[in-house]
């Protein structure tokens, strides 16, 4: 425990002093401000002379405006943020030959990994919370609505899920920084995993569902049972991907109007507005129940990643060469 704390403190100091942290923060703040101003103005425009729909505050985060929504941005950029913070955490010390020294101090080896992971998580949390607060502040001024208890709770849950999700990517990149001696290789490997999950899993899911439950056009039309099976296989397969888990979870939490777990990308703001007038939102508690399995899955894959990390690192020979 002592070792973790000491290394954690040093790592935090390193993060705060690093150019990397400055650049990431600047980027996220910039994008956050731009998106919020655009979305905020759009909402203001739309709302003129209309009754305010419920949970309007959340629209600040989910409306796509002219570009993309903040939630989409984090969904895309979050993994990169995690990778960026971790891809050289262990091999940097290997290259600078300090790792040898570190592991010959009276600390447990796992505390090195744990401390590095936790400091990364802390940095991600700081960035996320700060950005959400910034957007909320801007949003309150622009739209003029104060968030209610439910909206705040939903935002908090959103931040927690995002933190877990980005931490998973941090874990992946730390794992690669243990496995690969060169930082460039570990960054590339992390990116490869990211691309794999982003694109190939959904591709693979549709290929697999086509193979297992092909939808054949017969004279009598499409067999509905086959169609359902097809859809189910596609869905289950794509749940392997942390991206799918994350986007479904955040959609459920932030967009309670929707009863399905389709991603936000598919729906425009107008559609959303019209829906919000004719439907009542899913209650918070039910939303939470829906996302709990998703959260557990994300935590589980992160732990798996850590298990591998320990296995590799604990028995690794550490030499200065």
């Amino acid at each position: 425990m002592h070792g973790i704390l000491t290394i954690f403190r040093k790592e935090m100091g390193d993060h705060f002093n690093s150019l990397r942290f400055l650049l990431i923060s600047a980027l996220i703040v910039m994008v956050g401000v731009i998106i919020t101003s655009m979305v905020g103005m759009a909402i203001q425009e739309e709302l003129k002379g209309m009754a305010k729909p419920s949970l309007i505050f959340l629209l600040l985060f989910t409306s796509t405006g002219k570009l993309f929504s903040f939630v989409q941005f984090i969904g895309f950029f979050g993994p990169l943020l995690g990778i960026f913070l971790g891809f050289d955490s262990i091999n940097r010390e290997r290259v600078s030959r300090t790792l040898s020294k570190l592991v010959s101090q009276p600390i447990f080896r796992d505390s090195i990994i744990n401390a590095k992971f936790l400091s990364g998580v802390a940095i991600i949390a700081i960035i996320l919370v700060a950005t959400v607060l910034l957007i909320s502040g801007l949003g309150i001024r622009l739209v003029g609505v104060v968030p209610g208890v439910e909206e705040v709770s939903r935002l908090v849950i959103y931040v927690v899920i995002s933190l877990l999700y980005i931490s998973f990517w941090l874990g992946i990149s730390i794992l690669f920084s243990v496995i690969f001696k060169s930082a460039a290789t570990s960054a590339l490997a992390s990116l490869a995993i990211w691309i794999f999950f982003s694109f190939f899993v959904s591709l693979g899911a549709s290929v697999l569902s086509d193979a297992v439950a092909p939808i054949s056009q017969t004279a009598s039309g499409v067999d509905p049972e086959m169609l359902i099976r097809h859809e189910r296989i596609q869905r289950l397969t794509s749940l392997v991907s942390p991206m799918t888990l994350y986007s479904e979870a955040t959609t459920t939490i932030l967009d309670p109007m929707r009863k399905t777990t389709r991603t936000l990308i598919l729906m425009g703001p107008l559609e959303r507005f019209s829906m919000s007038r004719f439907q009542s939102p899913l209650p918070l508690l039910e939303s939470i129940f829906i996302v709990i399995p998703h959260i557990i899955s994300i935590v589980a894959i992160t732990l798996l990643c850590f298990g591998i990390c320990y296995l590799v690192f604990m028995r690794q020979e550490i030499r200065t060469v």
Partner: protein
Amino acid sequence: MKGQIIVETEDLTKKYGSRTAVDHLNIKIEEGEVFGFLGPNGAGKTTTLLMFLGLTEPTSGRAKVIGFDPTREPFKVKEKVGYLPENVGFYDDMDARQNLRYIAKLNRISGGVSEKRIDYWLEMVGLSEESTKKVGTFSKGMRQRLGIAEVLIKEPKLVFLDEPTIGLDPDGTNRMLDLIHSLSREKNITLFLSSHLLDQVQRICDRVGIMINGNLVAIGPIDELAKKKLGLGKEDYTLEEIYMKYFKEA
């Protein structure tokens, strides 16, 4: 010189694939001695040291360092044993003092004590003046000296030094050798050092071991080895002569 046994190995072996880096090593080191570990490049010296600290696992055999098995209880070993790796590295964006402070913290040395020790050891290795400079700007010799200070900050009972005087200037070397000598004589710290600089080893070591191709071909006090290899009556031998003789035979 009849202290307790502080390092002991039993057929300690390390294989990398089919290559045997350390072959059935049996060695005993007594408390308080200065032991010189010699051998050509690739002989297996560093590998042996790594096994002593639990930084790599032996393929077979056992080691016991300050009474503990480094593979099973690395924590216990590392609490009391210092290790200076060859080509030691530092956090280049921190200054000398910050580097030492970090290591002191990892060793649970409390703030007040650690500041005093840092001052003391910086003085001893001649880096007091440079203590607030970033280590990235240090010369090789300065880094080596800082490395020694860093090892000693935890006041170890036993220290493994992998080529400690490499990169030091003649004056620095002399001071380092005096320091090592006094550590052993005044503080009863056991020193186990690997080196290629035979005249230095001859100056400070009580006993030497010569390792060639993973095999320990000779071990003992230098004068005994001289008697055995160079014949009786030869007075002004050098360690180099002995070493070369073993090297050619192997």
